[in-house]
């Protein structure tokens, strides 16, 4: 419920025991290693360690993840959305022997895959060659035949569109000292062998070229086409057999994909460790470690440092160090999920406020207000509860789910006030089954058609004005809460004047103005009280500005403060109208789907209503999340939040594929 106090650690140790120390710290998971800065000049000889080990582990991680990617296609492992991560003891994760074996398997898989790829290239080359040989299969002469003492042998191709007679005619016209043998055809060309007397060779060639024939060079071959064809076929069969062996190698390893995942997780831990190591500074025999840890871990950290014989200094951060202090939020079950939202915006500054406990109730309330549907709320709450119970998600995913669970409950609450279940599902359903059933349902308190099993308090579509006022009232409450937090913080820091001339003054002005306008409608003296408050507030604001800068500057500051304040509060509070807009839009779209379905009878109604409402739920989930988020981040945080911290990121075990059970290391 607050920002965890941190201690700054600076330690010197011998390089010999360093890896073991870092492993121990990683297992504890409570020390963030930072790059030391502002070291005295005489420490200049220290330099960061080389990154060879890091590159080595990164390389292994790449190999493992490539192999896992390949094995994914062989799908031996079944894992559903609701399957929790398998649990693995810390010793198992870091088992060096198993890691080496998994790495060897990964290399085997990767090699088999690249061999298969190379084979594929060879295969397509062979297939092209086979294709090229096909027209010549019937020809009994070797393809590298050049001719005889008196004749030249030439191989030609000619378009199928040109009739054979045309070729023969042209040859006859050129010479009679030739012999033509037709070979096969393919889709575009027919092929032939021409034996021609050397004396006429040139003329014949020119004539044929003119006709559109192309001379082919088959010198790369030796022997007849049929012989070559057989040899190529045999080679292809060999390749098939080799491929089978390679495929089998990959398939055999497919059942080991889990081992590979564990190994990848280990490799990533080593990468993390090396990255942390890169932030240390080395001399020839020693290293310097700079870091942060939460105050409550002090004794544990000290014990380890003593055990490894480090010389160290532990200090509270000085105020000028605050921007460097990593931020950890101390949360309970209710507020922890909202760390996702805070982290998405920005972590608080070290001397700021943990916004989660203040934001959580508003977030839940606003989300439910906009969603306001029992059916949607139930779907959200049940869906997230089942996911949380079965898949046991950790980290941000788990936080998101818990957050949506709470928002679902809130949607059920607001839905029960507006009597909305998938919009007006029940009234429409009862109308279709038997209109007498409608008597079970009760109309809203303010009157109207019966909608729900108990009388709803209001209806977002019919009671627009009330919903609008309600939205802005919620806005006023949140903005005032933000101001209160800011005021308390200012008093704590001893900035009483600032608090008085800002938050206190504006409380008086805003409440005073509201009372002065609306008060007389209730009781006449309230108007006077309002006016007194309003002018008191204005006076505070003026005095505050005059103290800050005397004379004209103070007056200008006062004018500016009035303008900024009025426009700022006005636009901030109007911004909460989005609560109304989303509440109405969701309700209307649900009603439209239900009415549309009801036109065509009972069965189409159920189908259309279900599909339409699921679609509306998805739309609303996005809309409500985005706009609740916006109200927190802009309107609420803007009033008090001091951001700019960076999240505490200790050296720890972070796994993707397994859940690590803590044990000794």
């Amino acid at each position, binding site marked *: 419920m607050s920002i965890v106090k941190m201690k700054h650690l600076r330690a010197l140790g011998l390089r010999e025991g360093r890896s073991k120390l870092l492993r121990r710290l990683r297992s504890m998971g409570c020390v963030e290693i930072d790059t030391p800065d502002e070291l005295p000049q005489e420490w200049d000889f220290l330099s960061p360690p080389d990154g060879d080990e890091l590159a080595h582990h990164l390389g292994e991680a790449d190999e493992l993840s490539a192999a896992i990617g390949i094995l994914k296609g062989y799908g031996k492992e079944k894992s559903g959305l609701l399957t929790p991560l398998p649990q693995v003891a810390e010793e198992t994760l870091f088992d060096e022997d198993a890691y080496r074996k998994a790495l060897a398997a990964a290399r085997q898989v990767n090699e088999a895959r690249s061999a298969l790829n190379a084979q594929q290239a060879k295969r397509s080359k062979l297939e092209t060659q086979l294709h090229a040989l096909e027209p010549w299969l019937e020809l009994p002469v070797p393809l590298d035949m050049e001719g005889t003492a008196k004749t030249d042998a030439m191989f030609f191709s000619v378009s199928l569109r040109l009739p054979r007679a045309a070729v023969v005619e042209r040859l006859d016209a050129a010479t009679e000292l030739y012999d033509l043998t037709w070979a096969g055809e393919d889709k575009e060309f027919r092929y032939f062998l021409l034996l021609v007397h050397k004396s006429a060779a040139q003329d014949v060639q020119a004539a044929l070229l003119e006709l559109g024939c192309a001379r082919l060079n088959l010198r790369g071959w030796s022997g007849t086409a049929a012989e070559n064809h057989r040899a190529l076929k045999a080679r292809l069969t060999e390749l098939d057999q080799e491929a089978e062996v390679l495929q089998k190698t990959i398939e055999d390893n497919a059942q080991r994909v889990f081992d590979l995942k564990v190994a990848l997780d280990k490799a990533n831990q080593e990468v993390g460790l090396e990255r942390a190591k890169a932030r240390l500074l080395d001399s020839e025999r020693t290293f310097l470690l700079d870091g942060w840890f939460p105050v409550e871990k002090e004794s544990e950290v000290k014990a380890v440092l003593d055990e490894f014989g480090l010389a160290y200094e532990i200090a509270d951060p000085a105020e000028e160090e605050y921007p460097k202090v990593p931020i950890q939020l101390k949360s309970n079950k209710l507020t922890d999920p909202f760390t996702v939202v805070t982290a*998405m915006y920005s972590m608080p500054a070290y001397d700021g406020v943990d916004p989660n406990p203040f934001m959580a109730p508003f977030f839940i309330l606003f989300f439910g207000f906009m969603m306001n549907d029992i059916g949607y709320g139930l779907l959200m709450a049940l869906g997230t509860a089942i996911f949380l119970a079965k898949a046991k998600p950790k980290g941000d995913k788990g936080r998101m789910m818990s957050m949506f669970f709470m928002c679902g409950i809130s949607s059920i609450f607001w839905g029960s006030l507006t009597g909305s279940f998938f919009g007006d599902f029940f009234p429409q359903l009862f109308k279709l089954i038997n209109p007498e059933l409608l008597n079970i349902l009760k109309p809203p308190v303010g009157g109207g058609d019966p909608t729900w099993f108990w009388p709803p308090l209001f209806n977002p*579509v019919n009671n*627009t004005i009330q919903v609008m006022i309600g939205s802005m009232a919620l806005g006023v409450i949140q903005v005032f809460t933000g101001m209160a937090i800011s005021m308390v913080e200012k008093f704590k820091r001893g900035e009483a004047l600032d608090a008085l001339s800002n938050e206190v003054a504006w409380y008086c002005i805003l409440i005073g103005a509201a009372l002065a306008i609306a008060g007389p409608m209730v009781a006449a003296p309230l108007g006077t009280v309002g006016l007194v408050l309003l002018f008191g507030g204005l006076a505070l604001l003026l005095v505050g500005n005059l103290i800050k800068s005397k004379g004209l500057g103070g007056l200008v500051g006062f004018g500016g403060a009035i303008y900024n304040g009025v426009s700022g509060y006005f636009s901030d509070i109007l911004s909460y109208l*989005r609560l*109304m*807009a*989303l509440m*109405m*839009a969701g309700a*209307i*779209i649900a009603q*439209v789907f239900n*009415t*549309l379905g*009801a*036109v065509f009878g009972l069965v189409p109604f159920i189908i259309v209503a279900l599909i339409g409402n699921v*679609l509306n739920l998805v*739309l609303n989930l*996005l*809309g409500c*999340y*985005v*706009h609740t*988020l*916006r109200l927190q981040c802009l309107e609420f945080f803007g009033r008090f939040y001091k951001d700019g911290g960076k999240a505490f990121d200790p050296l720890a075990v972070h796994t993707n594929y397994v859940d690590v059970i803590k044990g000794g290391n």
Partner: protein
Amino acid sequence: MEFFEMFGGLGLAFIGIALAIVMCCIGSAKGTGLVGEAATGVLSETPEHFTKCMILEALPGTQGLYGIAAGFFALFVLGAFSGGIVPLTLSQGMSVLIACIPIAFGGWLSAKAQARVAAASINIVAKKPDDYMKGVILCGIVEFYAILSLVGTILMLMNAL
């Protein structure tokens, strides 16, 4: 006046309803098309991001839905689903027509604007797939103006007759 009388009240109302539906559908069609084109580039390299791309592509599609919802609501107000449409006076017809304007234009243009954000967010899917929800959130901001247009139209339709 004679010009409008040629249409009759009901004719004017139907022009409004048609505008609400067709403008929104044009916007959504253009929008989803634009995002779809951008998505194919990523999918040709990394087909496993299909779901993320599809979610982004579907976002500018909601305006079409709002258009049909508004049109449907207008028909509902006119009594199409409760005993048949009654004849309208010119001013009533004109009210329905004007009431349909917010969603017709708000839906059309917000779909196009949202599509540009969604298409640009495809880059997030390509480079940092884990952060693609942030792109969806950026699109959600644009979506709000389609929602406001819809709410505006519905509020006006409720008071049109």
